[in-house]
């Protein structure tokens, strides 16, 4: 949806510049036209107001007697008599070329960095076709983020979609920027690109992200689509699609390893709800439309790898949970689509633990593909399972203790309690230091030494003999990797 005000493109057919004056109805972000036969569904329209102001619309529904059009910049100030409508493009397309790297655009793909519009190699429909499932390649390349709760317990792999769920006020952006920075240093500089899609975030947040992406010296490897809180809400529906279209283009036509950060998906969903209510659709849970699952899937499924291609699209959507509620429709539907989730905890944050990731509700569904002998380390899977089990049990004991008091606990229970405390303080609360995966796993073994060996039945005996004993004897991180 490149604007071409300065260089109008030649008309594809005589319809392009024909103007129509038949607006019949205006409601919320929608306008209705009195005839639906002129434009195809999905077409992009120009609406020119009496003042000369130009806005963009998209045809959502068409029948003989009407076309329903969503206006990206809102309908404020539009009247039915003096608004001219014309066809802009038969579908929402974005210009793509390799020069897109380093550029900044608004939420619908118009440049905001003062540079001229991109000279397009190709124009791509931002709706995006589905990757044929038989063309998909299994994502299995471990991305070392340096963060123990992710690398050790919820491993991220290239081509995965792994969102971060957080409550208001939690340091999610810091976590995301850490991940991006570490992922960048791991890749070949030439091929790594961050595509950033910002939906309705504050000026300050946007600045934070851009600065942090650039700090790694990778500023020139960032493509940003930025719709701020003060920008038109309906434009947000286009932002992730623009970002992902460029991401797919770079990954699958130029062999780039693309990391897409989308923030904040909750604002995207609000915009979706706004359209649905203006269309008087029957609302689903909490007023969100019944098709929100399908709509979100059309975004999140645009991650992955393709057989025979070296590039990949990895997605880290950021999503603020209204009222810290993980069963709210936005995180709920997201979790049903993405390949796991990283969940932040207010409790840990209050206790000063950074990054405050609660590993229990967190999950990486692709973890098994990316870990083990030859990828990370042989003991990784079983060790993580065992640590999970011990930590979950320790948390249960902590809850129990708050009811019955510490004295009522058995000696073993007290060990589990101490384990949970140490796990949170040391494993989770690593601060801003970066940990190699080997260090994370060694620390795991050290923490396990709090628990009697006989309890560790989730780990194969050979591994225990090799790692546990080693650490009990030496008390220092083992050199294995």
């Amino acid at each position: 949806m490149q604007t071409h005000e300065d260089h109008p493109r030649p008309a594809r057919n005589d319809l392009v510049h024909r103007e129509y004056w038949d607006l019949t109805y205006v409601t919320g972000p929608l306008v209705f036209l009195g005839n639906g036969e002129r434009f195809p569904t999905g077409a992009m329209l120009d609406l020119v107001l009496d003042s000369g102001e130009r806005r963009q619309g998209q045809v959502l529904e068409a029948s003989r007697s009407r076309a329903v059009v969503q206006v990206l910049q809102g309908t404020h100030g539009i009247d039915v008599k003096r608004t001219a409508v014309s066809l802009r493009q038969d579908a929402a397309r974005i210009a793509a070329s390799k020069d897109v790297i380093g550029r900044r655009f608004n939420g619908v793909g118009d440049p905001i960095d003062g540079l001229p519009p991109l000279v397009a190699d190709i124009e791509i429909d931002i709706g995006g076709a589905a990757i044929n499932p038989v063309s998909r390649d299994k994502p299995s390349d471990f991305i070392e983020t340096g963060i123990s709760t992710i690398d050790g317990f919820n491993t991220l792999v290239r081509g995965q979609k792994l969102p971060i769920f957080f409550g208001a006020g939690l340091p999610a952006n810091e976590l995301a920027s850490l991940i991006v920075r570490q992922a960048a240093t791991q890749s070949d500089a030439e091929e790594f690109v961050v595509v950033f899609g910002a939906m309705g975030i504050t000026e300050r947040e946007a600045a934070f992200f851009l600065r942090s992406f650039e700090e790694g010296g990778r500023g020139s490897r960032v493509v940003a689509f930025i719709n701020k809180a003060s920008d038109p809400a309906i434009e947000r529906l286009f932002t992730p699609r623009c970002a992902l279209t460029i991401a797919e283009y770079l990954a699958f036509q130029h062999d780039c390893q693309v990391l897409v950060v989308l923030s904040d998906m909750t604002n995207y969903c609000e915009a979706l709800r706004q359209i649905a209510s203006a269309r008087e659709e029957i609302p689903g849970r909490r007023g969100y439309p019944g098709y929100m699952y399908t709509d979100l899937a059309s975004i999140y499924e645009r991650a992955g790898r393709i057989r025979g291609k070296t590039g990949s699209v990895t997605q880290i959507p950021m999503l603020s949970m209204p009222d810290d509620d993980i069963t709210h429709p936005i995180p709920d539907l997201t979790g049903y689509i993405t390949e796991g989730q990283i969940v932040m905890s207010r409790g840990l944050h209050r206790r000063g633990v950074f990054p405050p990731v609660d590993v229990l509700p967190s999950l990486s569904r692709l973890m098994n593909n990316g870990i083990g002998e030859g990828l990370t380390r042989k003991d990784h899977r079983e060790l993580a399972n065992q640590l999970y089990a011990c930590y979950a049990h320790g948390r249960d004991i902590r809850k129990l203790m708050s009811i019955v008091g510490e004295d009522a606990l058995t000696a073993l229970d007290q060990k589990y309690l101490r384990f949970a405390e140490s796990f949170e303080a040391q494993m989770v609360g690593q601060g801003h230091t970066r940990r190699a995966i080997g260090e994370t796993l060694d620390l795991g073994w050290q923490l396990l030494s709090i628990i009697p060996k006989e309890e560790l039945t989730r780990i194969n005996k050979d591994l225990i003999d090799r790692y546990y004993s080693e650490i009990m004897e030496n008390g220092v991180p083992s050199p294995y990797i």
Partner: protein
Amino acid sequence: MAHSEHPIVGNLTLISGPMVAAGGMLGVTMGEIVRVGNARLMGEVIRIDGATAYAQVFEDTGGLYVGEPVEAMGDALSVELGPGLLGGTFDGIQRPLESLRQASGDFIGRGLTSHALDRRTKWHLVPRVAPGDELTGGTVLGTVRETAGIEHRILAPPRAAGRVKRVVPEGEYTVTDTIVELDGGAALTLMHRWPVKQARPVARKLPPDRPFLTGQRVLDCLFPIALGGAAIVPGGFGTGKTVVEQTLAKFCNADVIVYVGCGERGNEMADVLSEFPALNDPRTGESLMNRTVLVVNTSNMPVAARDASVYTGITIAEYYRDQGYDVAVMADSTSRWAEALREISSRLEEMPGEEGYPTYLSARVAEFYERSGRVVCAGGERVGSLTLVGAVSPPGGDFSEPVTQTSLRVTGGLWALDSALAYRRHYPAINWNRSYSLYFAELDAWFDEHAPAGWIRQRQTAMQLMQRDAELQEVVQLVGPDALQDNERLILEISKMIREVFLQQNAFSDNDAFSSLEKSAGLLEALLAFHDACREQLDREVSLSRILDLPIREDLARLRDVPNEAFAERTRQVIEAMKTALAELTPKG
């Protein structure tokens, strides 16, 4: 074909997402396939209002203009049934995904058509009928070896009847070659077509009295369903629905698996495609893919095709059932299908029922599950079965929602997944207090005869222990573990071992992903024997803490990771050692 002389061609009057309307369609029938627009997208008629037909479209409708042509195609949505389905991967309307890839590359294009069954492949047919034979629907015309494990029985189409006039000799034929001619001139081929929304006829239903075995201890022992039964697997996101479906597809005792990926992830399908060909069917030793048909309509593929995908899947399954096989359908997730119904219904502006779902949701769900069953097949004395396992994705993990509730009423098994268990990595996260099976009465005779001795009694003991454990846990939560007697604390300990050693089963473990009936029974037997022996010691006034300190507990816990083959021997040793160790605790004299 009904309209071949007077083709019905109308024009689009409305385009609203996956739903369109066209005028000038007088004569079109409900359920008929239409080709929509110049791109000839495939759709299905779902409402008729005079000359206007409403259709759900199985492809993306973007770019259509009002006024573009809509052609009625005469047939209802049908699938091709014949050799070549096994090992295949199809979309919701049975187009092979590989053909789509060849046609449009790595991203799926629109308006593509492709036969489900390859027209060039030649199959070696051994005829089974002779001129003069009377045949009816379901008569076996001949056989074809479709894969090493499956002999494909070529069936006369359900509505066929007549006397055989001519039969081709044994030899190589394509699916469209005529192999049998009937007296009236009817020509039968290796394949036939069948409308997916209509259940294929059977001679009669049989009681479901054989177990659908899964190699999953919690299911086989505590909540088994029958071959021909139906169960649902509801659970919030990340609780393990897909892993259950995939694990059953790998290890269950069906001959043929139809796996329907409905509105779920593309990578999960890629997973199956990369994993199954390399895995062997535990019963035949053949590649798992050779007994599997995949029907895939991922969440980002057109929503209306989700509706088609579940019907396509179950019709293919019925076809193999009719050949006399035990077939299992894994549908992941039925909720996405229900949501597709809801979306189309709301576009039609139908009066919504609960949570916006159409009022006919329960009827559709019931019809679907009613297609399961153990049957005597039409046209012969073959017995086949169709088992259905449907994943359900309740919003917020709350089972009170319509899809879960509706499905519960028409199925006999509930395998309830629980987020709390999943969070602590207790897999499979099947909640033993909440789940149930209604098939015990029918299955007990089989287990009595075929399962290791004591199976039913052990199951009951385990269930009672778990029940007692739940009650005691409540006490502990109120007043702490100190308030319990030693024998009560023993129950907590044993239940914990049952949970961790017996109920938990890691789907990614080399030795434990599949647990034979013998292993399952042996493991439970060992744990219960430990309980008995401990109780004996408590009666002799040995303190519980001394018992629990015994290292033999660890050996018991590690029994789970012993491979199926070595299991019996190792269990005997451990039980032996356990008894000795406990006996030594008894005070002398």
